[in-house]
């Protein structure tokens, strides 16, 4: 598998009235072609911001710094805006969370899908029309002939998300980034959209970055998982070992909170506390205030992301196969 996207040491900061807020800190992101990477994390963990930064879609208040952002070896940081726009939308496409507000209310969906085709290699109107119909069929929109003349407000959220997906795959992208594609949808249609995405990924051999906060979605789709928390990557490993042996206490806590895993317990376990906000980020490990195993070392030193048993973990005391923190004693000395 060749590498599609290589992002190294990506940081995003926003200048707010209260000072500089680091939304994303030193995140690495690599996706190979044909690979499904899931980025999971709670709201505000920086997962959306990091991919928006890669796409160049952040508002101007966002300051992006990085060592490297390469797509198929081409450096996006030094690419001209024009060259970057040629890649974006054609080779890298994106699907967003709110399908209905992500489509322009003033144009028919057929026109909007067609626009993606026309911008990247204008083709004859009849050809565009045929392609649009074909795409709508591929994403499972019924009666595409009529639907392509519909406006977004005339379709359901699920259909609109299928339209968004059709628009994203219009130019046969090598990489598709889906930012919480099912979160805003009815539970009943979530599965259909998810199946569609994974099916398209498999059939076309695309790389797929799926951003979600839903561990259930991760379990169904991911080959590799990146767990984010408060703007940092906490853990990264292939999906199967992650579910079997989470190395970071945060990942373990997330998994414990899955209803499927809480059988035989009276209460569903939760993680106490909240994700730190703009001005209450701790100095040491960002997860320390909510972690079961916090020691003075955790609150003093911020751990680095390091390899442990085939995973990458940002923890002073990564969990062993039995789920116990290695080298951990109460009080924190090793």
């Amino acid at each position, binding site marked *: 598998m060749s590498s599609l996207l290589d992002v190294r040491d990506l940081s995003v900061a926003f200048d707010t009235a209260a000072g500089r807020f680091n939304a994303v800190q030193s995140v690495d992101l690599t996706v190979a072609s044909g690979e499904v990477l899931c980025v999971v994390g709670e709201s505000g963990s920086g997962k959306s911001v990091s991919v928006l930064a890669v796409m*160049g879609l952040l508002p101007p208040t966002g300051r992006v710094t990085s060592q490297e952002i390469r797509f198929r070896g081409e450096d996006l940081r030094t690419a001209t805006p024009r060259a970057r726009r040629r*890649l974006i*939308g054609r080779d890298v496409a*994106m699907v967003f969370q709110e399908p209905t507000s992500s489509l322009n*209310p003033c*144009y028919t969906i057929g026109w909007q899908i067609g626009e993606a085709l026309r*911008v990247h290699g204008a083709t004859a109107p009849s050809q565009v029309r045929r392609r649009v119909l074909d795409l709508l069929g591929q994403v499972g929109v019924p009666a595409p002939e009529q639907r392509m003349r519909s406006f977004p407000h*005339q379709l359901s959220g699920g259909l609109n998300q299928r339209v968004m997906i059709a628009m994203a795959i219009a130019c046969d992208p090598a990489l598709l980034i889906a930012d919480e594609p099912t979160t805003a949808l009815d539970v009943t249609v979530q599965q259909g959209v998810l199946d569609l995405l994974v099916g398209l990924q498999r059939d076309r051999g695309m790389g797929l970055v799926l951003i979600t906060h839903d561990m259930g979605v991760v379990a169904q789709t991911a080959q590799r998982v990146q767990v984010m928390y408060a703007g940092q990557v906490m853990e990264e490993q292939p999906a199967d070992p992650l579910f079997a042996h989470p190395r970071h206490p945060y990942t373990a806590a997330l998994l414990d909170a899955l209803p499927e895993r809480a059988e035989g317990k009276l209460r569903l376990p939760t993680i106490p506390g909240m994700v730190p906000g703009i001005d209450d980020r701790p100095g040491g490990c960002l997860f320390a205030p909510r972690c079961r195993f916090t020691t003075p070392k955790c609150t003093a030193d911020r751990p680095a992301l390091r390899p442990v048993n085939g995973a990458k973990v940002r923890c002073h005391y990564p969990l062993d196969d039995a789920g116990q923190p290695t080298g951990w004693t109460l009080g924190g000395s090793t």
Partner: protein
Amino acid sequence: MIRHFARRLALIVPTLVGVTLLGFILVHAVPGDPVEVRTGERGISPERLAYFRHELGLDQPLWKQFADYEWQLLHGNLGRSLVTQESVWTEFTTFFPATLELGICALTFALVIGLPLGVIAAVRRGSALDYGLIGISVTGASMPIFWWGLMVILVFSVALGWTPVSGRIDELYYIEPHTGFLLIDSLFFSDDKGAFISTVRHLILPTIVLGTIPLATIARMTRSAMLEVLGEDYVRTARAKGLAPSRVVVVHALRNALIPVVTVLGLQVGALLGGAILTETVFSWPGVGHWLVESVQRRDYNVLQGGTLLIAILVMLVNLGVDVLYGVLNPRLRR
């Protein structure tokens, strides 16, 4: 949608009755009547005064005069000017093209400058350019037309001598009215190329003066609508498609921002006709506004009442048209 328009049309009737009543009251509240004004300082014998008043129906009680006027209106008759004896409708159609020509030019000027200014200010939000444009548009919107007109004349006509002071065209030229629009008549129906140039030169200052307030309003409205739209998800989607920034702004953002701007535009037409009265007076522009102001001085009741009514109908029709346009611009209203 159809019910909506039926209701709007039905509302026009009571509005028009209200307009005529208001017009009637205001006209009769002004001291002096047409006969007294015309006799001037020379005076007139009481007998002849009573005779003329009787002739014009001014000796009737007010309610009777109003009822008679409404009855006449119901027959589609606006009456005759008390001064020229010409029918009010004929006079209106004679003067109206001049006002329409000026109004179209002013609105075009306001749109052509105001829309891009608003868009640029929104795209460069917070820049010096943005603040400058806000400052200019606030100043423009609060500029009294009569003062602004005089200032512009002082600078460009008197001091610099670039443009004529007043009128529609140089007195050298006589243009046979075909359409009533001098721009068209002088260009296509006159052999003299100077006539068209003279018409354009005469139009410049009134256009600027009348267009200033709509321009400022349009620029401000466009800016705020654009700011709102630029933060929408679909604008991000458009950028994610790899569209050029100009295409994102114009095709995706401006198309949506136009919806509220068009509403404001409809309201501006009413303000524009009000402004036309002042502008036409300042520039001696032979249009409806000028005609009405002269009629006030002559207490020409029929012209004042009829002219007000016709302008009211016009404003209502324009607003109805804007409603239709709104439905065309905003697909969400169609079903």
